[in-house]
């Protein structure tokens, strides 16, 4: 608990120091929003013309988009620094982290704050409000609880994927560049129902880079379309579990990497 308290304080200080530059802060937030808005406008404009894709209506695809954006927004708001962990390792800044009496990962996450996440999550919440209007959900307490778990699980999935890739930096110097690939999957492939992909990609997006659990699988539960869920209807409820297991895996890998760390040369 004490750790979380410290984490919160450091993060708040990070936000405050960024707010020092008012206009820059607003610009960063807007950028976060605009990047996501671009893919939203794309999907919306095309589906407004074509009405549906692979049996999913515009409204349903929009809901899949919304679920991903909520999870992605939480990830960006809290953990986005994980994406540049490989940089700290390569520059040798990591030495300082190891000397301090706080979990190294928590330190890196709060090293500097990127306000863009506020824009990501902000747009996610707006989209959720719109999706609610369009689809007329009946929110029961268990459904709301499940929604929170799905968002947390999705957030953990994205965090774990980036942690796994960036931990590679302890072995490979170019690891940071691979981040681009994960981004393509989590930013683009996760936006659409998995039905549109071939068997190989469906397998990949379910078991290897499980971004399907951020949006598509839980969406089948909320939209009452579990008869269509790929592989097994049970997958619709697996997001929180997948998030936890993947994070445990990523964190163990990270521990292995730290123990191997030998600082940069000279």
């Amino acid at each position, binding site marked *: 608990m004490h750790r979380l308290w410290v984490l919160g304080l450091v993060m708040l200080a990070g936000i405050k120091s960024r707010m020092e530059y008012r206009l820059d802060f607003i610009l960063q937030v*807007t950028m976060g929003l605009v990047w996501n808005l*671009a893919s939203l406008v794309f999907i919306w*404009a095309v589906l407004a*013309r074509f009405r*549906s894709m692979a049996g999913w209506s515009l409204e349903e695809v929009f809901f899949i988009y919304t679920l991903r954006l909520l999870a992605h927004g939480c990830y960006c708001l809290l953990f986005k620094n994980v994406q540049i962990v490989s940089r700290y390792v390569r520059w040798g800044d990591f030495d300082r982290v190891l000397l301090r009496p706080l979990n190294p990962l928590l330190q890196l996450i709060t090293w500097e704050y990127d306000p863009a996440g506020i824009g990501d999550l902000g747009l996610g919440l707006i989209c959720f409000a719109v999706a609610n209007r369009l689809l007329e959900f009946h929110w029961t307490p268990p459904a709301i609880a499940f929604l929170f778990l799905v968002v947390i699980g999705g957030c953990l999935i994205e965090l774990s994927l980036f942690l796994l890739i960036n931990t590679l930096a302890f072995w490979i110097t170019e690891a940071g560049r*691979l981040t*681009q*690939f994960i981004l393509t999957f989590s930013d683009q*492939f996760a936006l659409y129902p998995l039905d549109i992909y*071939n068997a190989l990609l469906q397998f990949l997006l379910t078991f290897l880079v499980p971004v399907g659990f951020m949006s598509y699988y839980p969406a089948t539960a909320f939209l009452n379309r579990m008869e269509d869920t790929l592989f097994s209807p049970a997958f619709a409820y697996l997001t929180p579990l997948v998030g936890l297991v993947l994070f445990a895996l990523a964190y163990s890998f990270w521990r292995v990497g730290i123990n191997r760390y030998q600082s940069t040369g000279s």
Partner: protein
Amino acid sequence: MNLRGYLKLAQAPFQMMLAYRTATLIECLGVVLRIYLMRIFWTAVYGGGAAVEGITLPMMVTYATLSNIQGLITSSYVHWFVQHRVRDGSIVIELLRPYGFLRSLLAWSIGDSLLWGGLMAIFTLAASLPFVNLHPPASLMAGLVYLASLILAIGVNFFLTTIVGLIAFWTLEITAFNTIFFFLSMFLSGGLIPLWFLPPWVRRIAELLPFQSLAHLPLSIYIGKIGGTAMGIALFKQAAWIGVLSVVVWLIWKAAERKVIVQGG
């Protein structure tokens, strides 16, 4: 400065990018992945249905694939180049050099597009072919006119990005303007969604702006949606925009020259 000097400048970005081979290779593979995703996306959206607005699925896949590949050629980062020079004050050195700053930017940009962009485009095209069915141009004539139109698109894009870059002389910071530019050119160029699929009011706005020269016009020529004399009109529109935008750039530049602020003592 004579032409030889500018030719040397045009080779500079090529040599610079060679230093970042891995990064460039990964960028190309990223584009291949996006091309593949776009094929899947449009196939799902068409869902076996007939042509929409006279565009069949194979035409659409060809359009989207080529749009991504030619994006590697038409894209430019001169605006960041200008912002950087203005911010750290080295713009003064640029102004002292024995050649025109704008002309040097143009030489740099053309070299970047044709040499490096061309190489990336060929590599990306070769790597994408196993995943997509890229149709040949509608006719030999369409293919040739497409190439001419692509060259003009590089020109239009150069002047548009230079305008964004020159704003740095007044604001020192162009991120916000670049975001607006990015958004406008993404949707009004037709590069992401063909303009025929957009609501009529968006299409009418796009007709009046230079952005459609970047993707919509060349790509429509390639797939044969614009044919015959309409091809000539399309080329004329692009050339006219280059004329208008070059005057705008020149006027802004004249004002900017008097506005140079050098940081430090």
